[in-house]
């Protein structure tokens, strides 16, 4: 290559190089901007893309020799626009051309340094400076004005409740006095409580006085019922008062400016005023007097109360008459005088004479004691159970078993004939094992029961007198004048061999009696049609056969009673069996069997059962949503959290703080139910929430809270849950094979 051509080539290379540099600078500027906003990766991508775009725009490679020649011609006047000849092939040039070429080459070589490649330096510099300024500006000048947008971080304005860590000069509590004034009615004197914990009677008024070393803005008393009592300030002495009615706890909140301090929790235990208690002595629940005996009862009443008794009295109700004509009369009876109102313990007495109450036979007195205590404003009352006192009415026939056995009360049950037979058989079996006296006594008792049964059945016969026996009823047999006097006991003996003494064979007494009655009473045409119930002979409740049977049964009962009283129960048994048989026949006799007539439904066809018309039968739907409330959920969930805090000493986030607060609330509820327990735990829990103390003491607090919560929380019952295990092809194959083994029949 000739020298001139070489120089032109160099110029072209240089020019191209500068154009590439310009392109790169522009791309770098774009990349700088991208970097300041979006980071390195974005800057790189922007550089590549920017370079590509600017390359397409500027086309730095697009430079040919013609352009270079033009440049040289323009810049080097001395060559007289003949730079093109440098490119020509010398062979093709004329002699002149060759001379010109040589000359031009020489000039170009001499003045090559005058050829300046057109670089838009200013433009490049301007653009570069501009973009650099933007880049530097984004690095060092904030995008937003931080003064106008508030940027408050947690902790700037909110100070910890426990400001001991802040070297703040909190006042010292010089004294804390709690004056307790019990209610006036308790007659207890006021006193000053030792210590901040309070143990008082219900309704007592407590007055707190806190003296500080210097005054602060205020102190509030906060109770477990979430009531806040602002304390009244007098200099550096703060007071407040409240009346206490239920258990709980309280604390103080000291406030000075924006700073607050909450004290420990202190217990309030309230002793309730219980109702008075009273007991009546000296008189049984049921007392009955005979008419002719002194009808006096002496009552003693023991009363006690926590603070004082205001009144004690008896409330008596006298009943007279019976049935619809019964009359009630209420009277207030006072105990004997001489006791003082307001006493805490009393023993009072009172003598009640039934005659003074104008009570006659058949009248009853129901009374109870009542007392009032001196509680204010609402008195408390209490009473005893009701006692019964009565005067017997002996004109009425009673099933009284009073007599030799000395049993004064009505029996709880009435022994049936069957029961008598069972007891008699039992007595016979026991004859050899029990003492003779006991045997006789039991036999006599059975005789009594037999008598009572006989009397009961005798009522249907119109027998008023229990003492008569069939023998006596029939009258003593008249001695036959021909044969002479007969055996006097014969009338009392049960002799079937004789005449139809017991009317075993149905007779026609009714007719006979009626004839006799007619004969007795003259002509009474209505007599045969009347129901005469007073006359034992004329009792017309039953037909003749039933009456005869009943009479016979009574006779058997008589005989049975006789042998029982003669301590020969084995001999009474046959009579008892007969009496029982007769009573059964009587029962069956009075039954009427009526043939059923009327609608008889057809038998149910099982095949058509449940296949009726169900159009009107609709399915029923019921939907209920029941929220299962497991108690103390937050308290339980705080256990793993506290344990984690203990082991890691991490700080609490918002959710964890909320959980501990809820746990504290649940624990507070538990404290109210169980006063005197878990108060320290609640204190520790609250300190864990609010305190920023050093790690060692914080760990001690957390441990204390954890111990307390675990003890407070009741144990859980096990519940079902699914187990997480891995199920894969081998397990499935195992199960399939197991199933096939089981299905294989042996």
């Amino acid at each position, binding site marked *: 290559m000739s020298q001139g051509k070489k120089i032109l080539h160099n110029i072209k290379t240089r020019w191209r190089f500068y154009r590439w540099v310009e392109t790169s600078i522009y791309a770098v500027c774009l990349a700088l901007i991208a970097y300041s906003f979006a980071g390195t990766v974005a800057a790189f991508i922007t550089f590549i893309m920017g370079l590509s775009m600017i390359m397409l725009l500027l086309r730095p490679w697009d430079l040919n020799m013609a352009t270079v020649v033009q440049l040289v011609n323009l810049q080097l006047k001395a060559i007289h626009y003949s730079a093109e000849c440098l490119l020509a092939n010398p062979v093709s040039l004329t002699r002149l051309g060759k001379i010109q070429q040589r000359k031009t080459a020489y000039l170009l070589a001499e003045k090559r340094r005058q050829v300046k490649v057109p670089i838009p330096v200013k433009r490049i510099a301007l653009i570069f400076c501009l973009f650099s300024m933007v880049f530097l500006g984004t690095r060092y000048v904030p995008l937003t004005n931080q003064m106008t947008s508030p940027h408050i971080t947690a902790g700037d304005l909110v100070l910890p409740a426990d400001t001991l860590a802040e070297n703040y000069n909190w006042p010292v509590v010089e004294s804390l006095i709690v004056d307790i004034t019990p209610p006036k009615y308790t007659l207890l004197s006021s006193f000053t409580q030792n210590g901040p914990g309070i143990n008082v009677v219900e309704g007592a008024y407590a007055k707190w006085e806190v003296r500080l070393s210097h005054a602060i803005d205020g102190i509030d008393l906060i109770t477990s019922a979430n009531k806040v009592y602002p304390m009244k300030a007098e200099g550096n002495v703060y007071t407040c008062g409240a009346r206490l009615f239920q258990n709980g706890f309280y604390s103080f909140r000291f406030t000075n400016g924006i700073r607050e301090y909450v004290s420990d929790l202190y217990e309030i235990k309230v002793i309730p005023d219980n109702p008075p208690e009273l007991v009546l002595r000296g008189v049984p629940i049921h007392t009955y007097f005979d008419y002719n005996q002194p009808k006096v009862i002496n009552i003693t009443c023991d009363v006690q109360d926590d603070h004082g008794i205001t009144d004690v009295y008896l409330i008596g109700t006298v009943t007279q008459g019976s049935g619809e004509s019964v009359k009630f009369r209420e009277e207030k009876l006072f105990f004997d005088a001489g006791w003082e109102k307001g006493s805490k313990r009393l023993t009072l007495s009172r003598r009640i004479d039934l005659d003074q109450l104008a009570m006659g036979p058949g009248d009853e007195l129901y009374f109870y004691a009542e007392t009032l205590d001196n509680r204010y404003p609402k008195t408390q009352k209490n009473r005893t159970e009701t006692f019964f006192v009565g005067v017997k009415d002996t004109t009425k026939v009673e099933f009284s078993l009073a007599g030799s056995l000395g049993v004064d009360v009505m029996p709880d049950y009435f022994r049936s004939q069957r029961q008598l037979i069972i007891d008699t058989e039992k007595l016979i079996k026991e004859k050899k094992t029990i003492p003779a006296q006991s045997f006789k006594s039991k036999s006599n008792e059975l005789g009594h029961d037999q008598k009572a049964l006989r009397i009961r059945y005798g009522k249907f016969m119109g027998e008023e007198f229990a003492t008569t026996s069939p023998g006596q009823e029939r009258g003593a047999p008249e001695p036959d004048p021909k044969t002479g006097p007969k055996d006097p006991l014969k009338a009392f003996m049960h002799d079937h061999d004789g005449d139809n003494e017991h009317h075993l064979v149905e007779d026609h007494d009714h007719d006979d009696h009626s004839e006799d009655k007619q004969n007795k009473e003259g002509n009474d045409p209505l007599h045969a049609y009347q129901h005469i119930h007073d006359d034992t002979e004329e009792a017309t409740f039953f037909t003749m056969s039933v009456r005869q049977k009943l009479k016979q049964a009574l006779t058997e009962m008589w005989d049975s009673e006789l042998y029982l009283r003669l301590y020969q129960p084995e001999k009474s048994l046959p009579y008892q069996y007969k009496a029982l048989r007769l009573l059964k026949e009587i029962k069956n006799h009075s039954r009427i069997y009526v043939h059923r007539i009327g609608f008889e439904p057809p038998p149910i066809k099982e095949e058509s059962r449940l296949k009726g018309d169900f159009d009107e039968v609709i399915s029923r739907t019921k*939907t209920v949503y029941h929220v299962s409330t497991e108690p103390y959920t937050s308290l339980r969930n705080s256990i793993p959290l506290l*344990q984690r805090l203990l082991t890691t000493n991490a700080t609490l986030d918002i959710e964890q703080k909320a959980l501990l607060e809820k746990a504290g609330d649940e624990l507070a509820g538990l404290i109210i139910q169980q006063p005197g327990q878990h108060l320290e735990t609640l204190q520790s829990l609250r300190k864990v929430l609010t305190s920023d103390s050093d790690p060692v003491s914080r760990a001690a607090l957390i441990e204390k809270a954890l111990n307390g919560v675990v003890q407070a929380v009741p144990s859980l019952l096990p519940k*079902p849950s699914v*187990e997480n295990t*891995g199920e894969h092809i*081998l397990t499935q194959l195992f199960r399939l094979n197991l199933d096939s083994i089981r299905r294989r029949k042996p």
Partner: protein
Amino acid sequence: MITLPDTKYLFWIWALGLLLFLILVIVEFMRKSDHFYYRIIALSGCVLSLMGIVLKPAFPEKIQRKNLIILTDNYSQKVLDSLQRYSASQVVRWDSLSVDLSRFDKFHLLGAGIPVYDLWQMKDKSVRYVPAELPEGITRIKYASYITAGESVILQGEYRQSEANHVKLILNGPSGKKMDSTSVSISGTTQFLLKGPSFATGELLYTLEVRDTTSLLSSETVPVVAQAPTVMNVFIINDYPTFETRSLKQLLVSEGHKVTVRNKVTQDRYSYEYYNTRARQIDRLTSGLLQAVHVIIIDFDSFKGLTDSEYQELHRQMTEAGLALFIQPDEAMFHSGLERLPFSFSKADSKETVLKVNDEPLSVPTYSYRPVMKLGVEAITNFSTFPVFFFHHSGRGKIGSALLTKTYQIGLQGDTISYNRIWNTVFDRLLADVNEAIELDRQMVYENEPLQVFWFSKDEKPFEVKYRQELLPPIQTALIPEQWSSQLWPDKKGWDELVFIRDSLRRYSFYVHDAADWKTVRQFERINANIRAFGAFTKLSESIKKKDEVTEQIPIEPIWFYLIFLGCAGYLWIEPKF
């Protein structure tokens, strides 16, 4: 003599090298340079050094192979001295191993052995293992790391001591309060069992202390995760309402379960009750209906009256999805001979039994039958001397029934706690296992030790498991395609967790112990694992007395070839310039 490694490209490397050399020689010849011969030598040097870098020639060297003695914790100095008397073997500690194991032929391992996760390093090597003395203290421990809140934490283990010292093992709760304790006073290995209640849902740390009469010997952490109980979806299907069903329904509803009750009014007419769930048609048992159900409680008449298609669907759900079925018994069930019923019964005399649920014994009436405990039939509870509740496996699910006639009387008598406990135990046993599990390769996890994590996924692509925000790369197990595994290295003591992402986020918590925790248990496990891997030797081998010599090929360092190449290439480049 220099030897070249045997490689299949040897011929081509030589051929190419020679060809290149020839070409370069021809070029040099054509250049007619003044220093032709020097340049040829330099060219040869370049080509040969390049081939040397590729072929890696080696010199043979005789190496005297030695035995290596590896020491681990609690090794016996006496054994070490005896070994060293035989030969001048190299002695290293496993903890600070810095030798190339492949240079040694035989190994003697002394002490507690190599950690289990490092046993693979000694695979296929000749190892003589002389185990250390078995440690004294707690040597084995077993407990359920995951329980349901309300369940007891039960620890079983073994305590070993060489002398008959009196020690006390105490289980303390999360607050440090004593829950249970037992004493050991005989020498040898004694088994123990300790029990403690769980108080809450979440991660709880219990402590197992060993104390003698004067001091605390050891204190170990027992981490337990108490899970919340499952909310069951229960269907009750009855022909007519009974007190038994009513009280059971009340129990389930009060505990927050979703209960659907269907009682028959008449043909095709039912009374539906929905508790804690939305109302829907349950006239027929279909696949869509049964999919979300955990337990079906059905009386025997209704069970007998299920159509074939309903029964087939029910059976399919039981075998494949793990549905539990509880059949309320009646007199007819015990001698029905129904093929669908997988139980058979024998007659018994007594119509009453005494249950021991809590401390107080409960007398409860039963049917006068007993189940025949054949293959597949298991007792659900151990409240009585014979199974009063029993079940039969049916694929993944279970069919259960009972002998008790009137359990509601227990609640009516005021003992609701026993009533709740009985039925909760029954449902707990009947519920199927869920196939969303993450398992660890061992129960105790220690810091700075590798931990293998396994999980199961039936999908082709396994669901993701993250550990500390990083996805764990899963490796599929060849023989069990559903099982995936990964390895992680916990490096911090305390509670840690894995998060697996499927339909929702689920967290699997595990506790990382300090390296010093459960020392005796770890040692015992390690000794046993090493014995299983290598066997236990008490006599020293005679083979250690011989010294082995082996010839090995030691390759020439490639840096020499590099330097030669640089020199020759430099000469070739610089020479024309001067």
